[in-house]
């Protein structure tokens, strides 16, 4: 394979890993969509 591919490989991997990290960071910051609360009797 062309050597240029091997030079681009670490750049692409680093960019993808950064994007993954950004996505995960945003995920953990989000509030949950569903909140389950305990309900008292006759509420």
């Amino acid at each position, binding site marked *: 394979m062309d*050597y*240029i591919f091997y*030079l*681009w490989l670490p*750049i*692409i991997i*680093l*960019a993808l*890993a*950064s*994007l993954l*990290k*950004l996505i995960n*960071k945003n995920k953990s910051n989000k509030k949950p969509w569903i909140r389950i609360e305990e309900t008292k009797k006759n509420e």
Partner: protein
Amino acid sequence: MSRHLSMRTANPALQSETFRKSMAESISDQGAMTISGVVNKTGLSLLLLVVGASFTWSNPELSGLAIMGSIVGLILAFVTIFKPTIAYMTVPAYAIMQGLFLGFISRVFEMQYPGIAVQAIFLTFGTLGSLLLAYSSGLIKATENFKLGVFAATGAIGVLYLINFIMSFFGSGIGVIHSNSTMGIIFSLGVVVIAALNLVLDFDFIEEGAEMGAPKYMEWYATFGLLVTLIWLYIEILRLLSKLNSRR
């Protein structure tokens, strides 16, 4: 407390001592340094560099202009380091001068290996974009040890290049720097990686300056630091590509 632990960077142009000095001077009515200000000034400087480069690219017979560009560029670099307050004048001029030099050497390499300059440009900006993403996502952090490592490695490369430069006067040199052997390519690859990691230190310097509320003229100074690293990275990528092409 600032998360920029160290006041150390590998780039001789970017020392945090510079911020302290400038902070001691008045921020006055100019306002403070911002990240967007640095981004705009970097864009403008790169545009000026391209203007200079396109001139010598299309007139490769003007080799004297390219040599003049590299010498005047070096003088302007020293002026910028010692007098950052006038960086708004010296940095655009530095960009044009370095452009003249880069346009010429890119053309020389291009004549030998067609397509090499475009590949080097894309790889340089690909590296810049990828590292910017890694820095902003927190994947790569400019910790104390990271800065120390990059600083030491850059210093070692600088010393090696200096020895090679002195040896060249006696008709000799360090073979691995110019050789297209496997060791020569590994060396070039290592230098490219170190040059790229210097970008992270530049990003940290810019963020630190903005956080500390450095004076507005420091935007030009930070632009200068980023420009120095980008030019170094581009030249090293060009050198690596030429070594790889010569083995075909």
